């Protein structure tokens, strides 16, 4: 009996806490504009290779301009970071940028360990963290409940990690990516405002072959 009432009180507290989080995180004015962040990261990209996680990050990258060197994922949730690692390891002279969301990164959370032990220095992972699962009805994610992804990356041993809260920091991050001297992980706090979808090509074979051909490889 006693135990049940203890559990009920704790559950109520937890629900209240979640409601508070929800109220604060759903404030559309908190955090950076995701489209502006991505536009700045991809400015003067030159020979940068880009992989996007499914959902909003793909739309954000498409909104900044389609490119032969973009690989958009439409499924395989949790795989953006490992696609980026394979690309970085096979193209060591190019800089590789993974742009994904907090939910997508959480589904592939173990890849942080896999990537860190590879000690790749031409790979940067940028998480656009709005604290929510945007595609499925804006449910709070673990990041929205206090898990700081950049600290996890730091614990895994990424060379450089940071939580980004200003456009000045985004500009410095863009320069860091171009320097290609460290394995980077940036958690960018973006607001949860809904942006119009800008749909990238969905034909996986087309975007694969387009990407490879731009690097000088023939389609199969």
């Amino acid at each position, binding site marked *: 009996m006693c135990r049940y009432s203890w559990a009920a009180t704790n559950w109520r507290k937890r629900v209240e806490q979640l409601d508070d989080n929800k109220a604060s995180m759903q404030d559309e004015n908190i955090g950076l504009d995701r489209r502006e962040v991505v536009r700045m990261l991809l400015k003067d990209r030159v020979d940068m*290779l880009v*992989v996007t996680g499914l959902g909003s990050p793909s739309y954000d990258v498409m909104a900044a301009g389609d490119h032969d060197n973009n*690989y958009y*994922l*439409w*499924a*395989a*949730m*949790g*795989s*953006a*970071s*490992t*696609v*980026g*690692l*394979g*690309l*970085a*390891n*096979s*193209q060591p002279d190019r800089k590789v940028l993974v742009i994904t969301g907090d939910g997508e990164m959480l589904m*592939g959370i*173990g*890849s942080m*360990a*896999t990537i860190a*032990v*590879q000690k790749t220095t031409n790979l940067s992972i940028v998480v656009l963290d709005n604290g929510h699962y945007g595609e499925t009805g804006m449910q709070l994610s673990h990041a929205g409940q206090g898990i700081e992804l950049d600290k996890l990356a730091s614990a895994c041993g990424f060379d450089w990690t940071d939580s980004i809260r200003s456009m000045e920091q985004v500009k410095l991050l863009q320069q860091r990516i171009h320097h290609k001297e460290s394995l980077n992980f940036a958690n960018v706090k973006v607001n949860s405002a809904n942006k119009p979808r800008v749909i990238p090509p969905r034909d*996986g*074979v087309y*975007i*694969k072959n387009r*990407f*490879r051909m731009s*690097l*000088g*490889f023939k389609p*199969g």
Partner: protein
Amino acid sequence: MQDNHPLPETWQDEVFPILKSVNVKHIAYVPDAGHSKAIKAANTDVSIKSVVLTTEEEGLGYLAGAWLGGDRGALLLQYSGVGNCINTLALQSCARFPLLMLVTMRGDWAEFNPWQNPMGQNTEEILTRMGVMIWRADKSEDVAPLIRGAATMAFDGDSACAVILGQRLIGEKEWNN
């Protein structure tokens, strides 16, 4: 027998040289006793990127990325890891990324631990249903030609291919010591 007499090659000794001969540059794996010789060889060969994974589906993403960058790779895993890969196999299916998987089996023959059976009994059907072509090796002499053939169909035909290395090939797990 003289000390310098070469030991007869087992199928485990053949795996890594075959992968190298078909120009595989990346070996992604989740550690496994059946693959231990190939893993050791990959870890000590400077021309190979050897990538230890926390879970098998990371290897599907990794090898897709490597192919985007122009390289061939292979995934070494246990049958249980096939279960972890199911959803991510959409990547190979929708984009026709080449995939070469070498899958060591449990729960398919002489299995002491029945907890291995649900996945072991369904590994081949799961792969087939997800669009992965499979070849099964239960005899050591089949391993080399099956891997070579699967590699041709993966890399020259942009297909997802798996070689199943059966428990009869690997041998019964010894539980008494």
